[in-house]
């Protein structure tokens, strides 16, 4: 029985730093580890022909890709992918800006652009093979042509819809059209443009995989298809894992870049949500 009539508020116990770090790590790897364990155990109990255990796959991964194959197959594929992505983004933003800001050009091209965007990108591969033959340039070009539409169309949209008050502000301070383009139009359009870049990245990866698996005689995709045709199951899986890792890498790089470029945009969203 205390002398005080008011309740004494004790601050809630905050778990110490180690406990918090531990819990974060547990959340991060808990489910994946659990899934792998289940898979592994299932594999020993009821082995499925086409689903080797994680350990087997890991072994095959090291055997297959860590070595000369990395240089002969993986690196060229990645190089082509990277080149294609850079080209697609640059062309998409440049052309998108030009088209978005020129009204008659936009109205002229809009139906065509929407149509090209609607074509499932992989069906363009046989077309480009027929047009250009199976060369390294063709492989890059077909990825560019298939994947540039999201970033191009998003740039067109973003560049068109600059806020009128912001535009009047720039005009009232006598900024030249070029200055307006780089200080106002492009930054204002950047959220939309980045959304397009994200889609472009994933389409580019799809194009690389399909074109190499079925229309090429070298590269990472070709290797995976080769393993499948020859029933080299563990190696095939290791190739799939590698492709998955590349996808994840692209996503991570994109997120880092996006968070940096759109820091202000995320900031506004947070303020609005509060």
């Amino acid at each position, binding site marked *: 029985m205390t002398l005080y009539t008011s309740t004494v508020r004790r601050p809630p116990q905050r778990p110490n730093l180690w406990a918090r770090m531990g819990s974060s790590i547990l959340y991060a790897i808990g489910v994946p580890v659990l899934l792998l364990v289940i898979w592994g155990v299932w594999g020993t109990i009821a082995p499925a022909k086409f689903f080797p255990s994680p350990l087997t796959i890991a072994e095959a991964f090291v055997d297959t890709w860590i070595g000369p194959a990395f240089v002969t197959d993986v690196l060229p594929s990645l190089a082509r992918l990277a080149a294609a992505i850079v080209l697609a983004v640059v062309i998409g933003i440049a052309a998108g800006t030009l088209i978005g800001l020129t009204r008659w050009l936009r109205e002229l091209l809009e139906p065509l652009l929407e149509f090209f965007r609607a074509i499932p990108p992989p069906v363009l591969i046989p077309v480009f093979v027929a047009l250009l033959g199976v060369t390294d340039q063709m492989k890059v070009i077909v990825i560019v042509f298939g994947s540039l539409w999201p970033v191009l169309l998003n740039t067109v949209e973003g560049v068109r819809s600059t806020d009128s008050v912001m535009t*009047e502000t720039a005009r009232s*301070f006598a900024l030249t059209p070029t200055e307006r383009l780089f200080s106002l139009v492009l930054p204002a359009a950047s959220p939309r443009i980045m959304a397009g870049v994200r889609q472009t990245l994933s389409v580019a990866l799809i194009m690389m995989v399909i074109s190499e698996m079925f229309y090429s005689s070298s590269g990472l995709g070709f290797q995976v298809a080769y393993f499948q045709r020859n029933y080299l199951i563990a190696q095939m899986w290791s190739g799939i894992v590698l492709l998955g890792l590349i996808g994840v890498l692209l996503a991570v790089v994109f997120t880092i870049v996006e968070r940096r470029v759109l820091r202000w945009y995320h900031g506004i969203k947070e303020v609005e949500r509060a």
Partner: protein
Amino acid sequence: MPDTLLTVDHLKKTYESSTGVVEAIGDIGFTMRRGELVCIVGPSGCGKTTLLKCIAGLLKPTAGSVVLDGKEVTGPPPNMALVFQEYGRSLYPWLTVRGNVELPLKHKKLSKARRTRLVEDALEAVGLSHAGGSYPWQLSGGMQQRVAIARAVAYQPEVLIMDEPFAAVDAQTRADLEDLVRRLHLDRGMSILFVTHDIDESVYLGERVIVLSKSPTWVQEDLHIDLDPQRDQITTRALPRFTELRTHVYEQIQRAKRGEATRPVG
């Protein structure tokens, strides 16, 4: 240096429409001397914003002319700065406060050191020296409008044009901002053209109040405000002369709304 800064001469602005021609501005003419604080009031829809846009070179008048510092205005002149009502859409969210204030200076070809000095000076003038690194959307509405004012001040224009800048701000903040405008005018001798729908504000701020008629707009009255230049919110607004003046302006606006005033001929 000639004393007249701005001359608006027989300004007319019309729009095409399917039923004929709409006269937004009929015939507006007035002059503004260097270092004056002129307020413009009028009934709603009388084309105040259209007038400002014509003066600022954002719209082309159908007839008449605007002459700023001896040169006719055909596009946004480089010695004029605008403060808009919608501060939220006028400041650029990807720039910090400092970045926003500095942006118009960038194309003036000044040295980096000079630019920084102008920016810091402007931020101090509006009382936001501590907020230079923040983003506009992290600040309150009143503070955002101060940033917009700082941006205009740093630009060092001949004339500052403000289009109902405090309409979207709460009353207490508005009082502070009004005093800020007075201070900029008195301490720095800035020429200010201030458009508002708030009659009390126009009398409190202005050395002259121009009352516009309703559409097709012309200058109904050009009133001289003979209050002491040192004003403050409490004492000035309690003066009998203040009440007289505001009542007079109010009556003029009512007449304008009813379309009773007749346009002087010639």
